[in-house]
């Protein structure tokens, strides 16, 4: 192969790649937090709620975990405007990823809720805790510790998943990489630098999550 690597042509664009990386992390973080709220609430309802609510949640979870995330966002971005709802690219991606994360995190947390110890729950009931207090003071601390590793993994997956936002005109890391590639045609250089930034992002995230887990929940985490 007769090709000379010219990384020098990519460096001027590095600030654009890094701002894209920031945006990717922001999207992942916001949609993960949203998904966590949805997941916690729905997992609690699945554990204690009435049958019809559980069935409704099952429909939501099955739908979102069995269709591609890309198709879900396509629906929000291109189908909803025909019904008069026009979401900006950023908002469409954020809502899509949040709803998707909500479904997965419901499933992950359901396992945590199910692993609660009956004796602890009975103790809480004896002490007069309401249902909400039981969830808040007994189940969640327990769940957080058991579930911290799988939740962190899901955050990493979501960080990488933000790359599809480029399709909807959000200029995150992949979007910026595509633009720079179109201008320089230095595909090998542009995409290898981009891949390295993604690696750096996920390493950074897993170290940060590992530290949080270690100190806040005493969860056993393998620091990358």
């Amino acid at each position: 192969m007769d090709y000379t690597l010219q990384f020098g042509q990519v460096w001027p664009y590095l600030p654009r790649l890094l701002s894209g990386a920031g945006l990717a992390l922001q999207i992942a973080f916001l949609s993960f937090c949203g998904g966590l709220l949805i997941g916690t609430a729905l997992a609690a309802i699945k554990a204690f709620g009435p049958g019809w609510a559980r069935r409704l949640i099952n429909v939501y979870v099955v739908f979102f975990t069995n269709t591609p995330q890309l198709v879900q966002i396509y629906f929000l971005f291109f189908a909803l405007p025909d019904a008069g709802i026009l979401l900006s690219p950023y908002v469409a991606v954020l809502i899509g990823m949040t709803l998707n994360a909500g479904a997965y995190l419901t499933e992950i947390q359901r396992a945590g809720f199910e692993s609660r110890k009956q004796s602890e729950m009975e103790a809480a009931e004896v002490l007069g805790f309401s249902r909400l207090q039981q969830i808040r003071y007994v189940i969640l601390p327990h769940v957080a510790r058991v579930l911290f590793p799988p939740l962190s993994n899901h955050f990493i997956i979501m960080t990488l998943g933000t790359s599809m936002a480029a399709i909807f005109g959000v200029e995150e890391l992949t979007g910026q990489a595509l633009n720079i590639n179109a201008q320089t045609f230095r595909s090998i250089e542009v995409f290898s630098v981009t891949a390295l930034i993604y690696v750096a992002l996920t390493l950074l995230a897993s170290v940060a999550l590992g530290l949080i887990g270690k100190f806040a929940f005493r969860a056993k985490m393998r620091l990358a």
Partner: protein
Amino acid sequence: MLKKLLLGMAALVGVAAMVAPSGASARTLDEVIKSGTIKVGVNPTFPPLGKFDEKNEIVGFDVDFATEIAKMLGVKLEIVQVGSPDRIPFVTAGKIDFVMGAMTRNPERAKVIDFTVPVHTEVFGVLTTEGKPFKTWKDLDKPEVTLIQVRGSTPVKFIEDNLKNAKVTLLDNYPDAIRALAQGRGDAIIDVVDFLGEHMNKHKVSWKVLDAPVDIYYCSLGVAKNSTGLKDWLNVAIFELHRRGKIDEMWKKWFGIDMLKPTQFTPYF
């Protein structure tokens, strides 16, 4: 084994003969007529000028136009597939008699090949919707303006250089970009508007093309420098096709809209 080797060598020699500059010069009009076939270069990566259909044959405006030319000359048509980098060498080497595929006339190219009178124009301009206040493309240089463009297309660089204040949403392909515009996600797109016609027609939106374009390209047939008689005959043929409204008809058929800027053909050339 020996037979295989010989065959392989023969094949190699054959390939070398094809690759090596043949030195063959362009054919004259007489030679084209005598051979009974005219060879026309069409680029199948420029729909609707040229594209592959479901039978993997090249079709499009350029093919219809070339068919019409061959009919007028009374010869058979042979379509030769060309790409952007090799289409001018194909003409100079005499592999084809003329080349199509949005051959924009410019002085640089005219040093190497000859051009006929224009066959069609292309408007590099602004497509927006009725009711938007823009008069020229320069009116788009405002922070409240959102342009919808296709990621990786050439106008993106133009906008970066000339319309720094406008916001840009980059989508993946032309159908998506035009739909986004129809849905009201942005105010305008800057591109070669003629090529957007087939996507525009899919939406019930009153489109507006700004009267003041960024640029107009005049596209001709590219002919070799020493193609005695061929260019002169083609000029007359193109004039006739313009006069009979044939070119407009074919344009409407393939582009879905009228040619935005008429070529303003004249009988004097």
